[in-house]
């Protein structure tokens, strides 16, 4: 499947207010989130703080709380919210006919 976008599965496979991961061979996982309002976001599965797995955090509003130290990370920009400073690489996502597509180039770059 050579192309700009990687088809990773159906939107419904991601729990609402939850997350799934995409394993990238030789690199870090990509975490794919689905908010209460059905928006899908993808980020490198690594908190800018102590590298916690963001995919395991609690999703609320447009943010996820890191499971290690409760940093809140914006799903749309990857930036830490509140007083914390740091940023996790984001991966563009699009939905097409119920399928979730993530940007191939950004995935490789983020996971490298």
């Amino acid at each position, binding site marked *: 499947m050579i192309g700009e976008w990687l088809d990773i599965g159906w939107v419904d*496979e991601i729990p609402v207010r939850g997350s799934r991961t995409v394993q990238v061979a030789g690199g870090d996982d990509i975490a794919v989130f689905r908010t209460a*309002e059905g928006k899908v976001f993808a980020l490198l599965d690594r908190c800018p703080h102590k590298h916690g797995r963001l995919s395991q955090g609690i999703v609320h509003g447009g943010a996820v709380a890191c499971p290690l130290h409760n940093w809140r990370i914006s799903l749309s920009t990857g930036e830490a919210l509140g007083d914390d400073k740091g940023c996790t690489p984001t991966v563009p996502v699009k939905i097409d006919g119920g399928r979730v597509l993530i940007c191939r180039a950004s995935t490789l770059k983020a996971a490298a």
Partner: protein
Amino acid sequence: MEHRPLKPGADTREHLVVIGNGMAGCRAVEELLARDPNRYRVTIFGAEPRVNYNRIMLSPVLAGEKSFDDIVINDADWYAANGIALVAGDPVVAIDRAAKTVTTRDGMSESYDRLLIATGSDPFIIPVPGKDLPGVIAFRDMDDVDTMLAAADAGGDAVVIGGGLLGLEAAHGLSLRGMKVTVIHLMPTLMERQLDEAAGWLLKQALEARGQTILTGADTAEIIGDGKVEGVKLKDGTLIPASLVVMAVGIRPSVALARDAGLAVGRGIQVDDHMVTSDPAVLAVGECVEHDGQVYGLVAPLWDMCRCLADGLVEQPSGYRGSVTSTKLKVSGIDVFSAGDFSGGDGCEDIVLRDASRGVYKRVIVKDDRIVGAVLYGDTADGSWYFDLLKKQDDVSELRDMLIFGQSFASGGGAADPKAAVAALSDDAEICGCNGVTKGQVVSCIAKGAHSLDAVRGTCKASASCGSCTGLVENLLALTLGDEVQAGPKTMCKCTSFSHDDVRREIVAQDMRSIPEVMQQLHWTTPDGCSSCRPALNYYLLCALPGDYVDDQQSRFVNERLHANIQKDGTYSVVPRMWGGLTNPTELRAIADVVEKYDAPMVKVTGGQRLDIFGIKKEDLPAVWADLNAAGMVSGHAYGKALRTVKTCVGSEWCRFGTQDSTGLGVKIERMSWGSWMPHKFKIAVSGCPRNCAEATIKDFGIVCVDSGYELHVGGNGGIHVRATDLLCKVATEEEAMDYCAAFIQLYREEARYLERTAPWIERVGVDYIKSRIADDNTGREALRARFLYAQSFSQDDPWAQRAEGAEREHHAPMARFTPQEEMA
């Protein structure tokens, strides 16, 4: 409808042919006529044998509120008066762009100078078996309404597939016509495109209260029936009888004609800012087009497009720039409104107002001092105001504090400060609607010494019931006292003005049964809470409704969701339960095998006398558990706000000092209390003599055996702040020790705040209170114990066994794997 002769005669004007006699096609012609009535000779082809009618008013026709004549937009006289030839009931089936002609199904051919395609959209029919059975219809045109009306006359059951705007209108209409209606919706909440979770939940409650059955998260497997529809079968096996099935799962731009003609088609017919397709002689407008990557299914963008199209046709091009859409509808008398982007996200602030007594939920989303979205439920009076501010992108920073109260309040008297607004209220203005308390009464109660929110609630009752006037009371406190306001008990989190105790009390008092319900009834200021309140609410509901409440996995911390402890490298540690700290060769072998098989880098004996296996990958957890289950071991809950371990010493069976069978008692207590969810982690120990080798006096519940019986200790902690236990009482028998233990755990479960260990809880309420409930009140203790055992009857399913059998697989398996090298091969 007769076919009018289409003789051009001496008319030498350019001929505009319109394919589509619907809302877009006719509106475009109306806009054109308004600009230059004589410029074009116009012919309209329509598939339906009718004049142009207002399709969005089909719902009131179905509901019996309007007749077809009421919803006609342009009657036959309009076509005649404007010299428009109408060919109705004979659809165009082909376009020849080279010859510039169109051909109808009946074979009529017509030439054009400019062609306008306004074919609208087609209902999407989900490809399930039985979709073609008689009695399965869409909800798109007057014929569908006629079919529904005929079915309703016969009575019986109807199923509507699709809980979006159209589906709910169909369901409402059929329900009013006397049918028993079930709505099947694939997504977890209704109208998820237009409403957020909170509003969708409110809508579901209201529709159910009006007699409809709403199944969310329901996936249709097939439509069954012999020769005609008889029912709908869901993927989970549920069978719903139905003599009518309405598919309202969505629409697709109707593009077949354009595609066959070789026009550029994406999701819709692609047009530029002037509604011109890839062929300069062919235009397109309405739901069938794709403009700048967007397709629209609402009426407002269509009006915008028609204006720009007409401007282009009279050579005064304006250019369409896309539309911001809003949805306003009334279902079963419930007003709902949404506009713009309400998905939140970076830099967005939510302003939320919930008024449970009026059934109102309002949410305005602000970014960079501008409104970007709004969701209103129950009171949509200010929808157009918000939508106007949104479209104009007005700076709302001046209005911000008042915005959510609506236009009349926010613009009233230029009072841009909530305190000033409250100050401006008269003394007899009602502050608390629930308890009928006026501003004067609140102020006088503050003047008499009620210097905190709690004190006001306790004296004049203002904001003591639903809490929606909390903000007003706080402003009155600030206004009356300045800086002397005393802070009340800490609120649960930033999402609410209620404390943990308030929330728990109200959950029980109002019999609330779900997280969205609590958030609505208690006026949460965020749409779906935060990582502090969601786990707390989940626990409080679980505790209040044993066996009844469906645990919300997404409101649990990762360790409780994955039933293992996350470590700093993202792997997990696994602790199998060893009852009372006892083990045997089978268990030890199984643990050793797991360590080798899954390459666990470390095994450690824990402080609670268990073995902790480190470095297990998330994907391997179910397999590890299956192996441990096979050796008879279950989850040790070392990850949970739950009973952790019962630590024991060897006791009278082996020890020369032992006074009682401390190991045996420890095992019995662990068997009784394992699996129970609690406000925080909970540790127990049983020591066989006062030498206390099991360290029972730094546990949440500790038993120290003595010759004459059992000393029961509570509230110990060996953490950051070491706290020795308080002696609760002494009992004579093992049975009593276990009964008291069960009662104490239940008291802690019911009354401690979430994330409050027993030590701070007891410091807060006092050990005398605990004694009065456990040691001194036999009836009360027995009731607590009974409630604990009842709750336990639902919680002693090994979560590991369920996961090992494949439950909630998605928590463990990656969604996809991506190997760059493979891709290159």
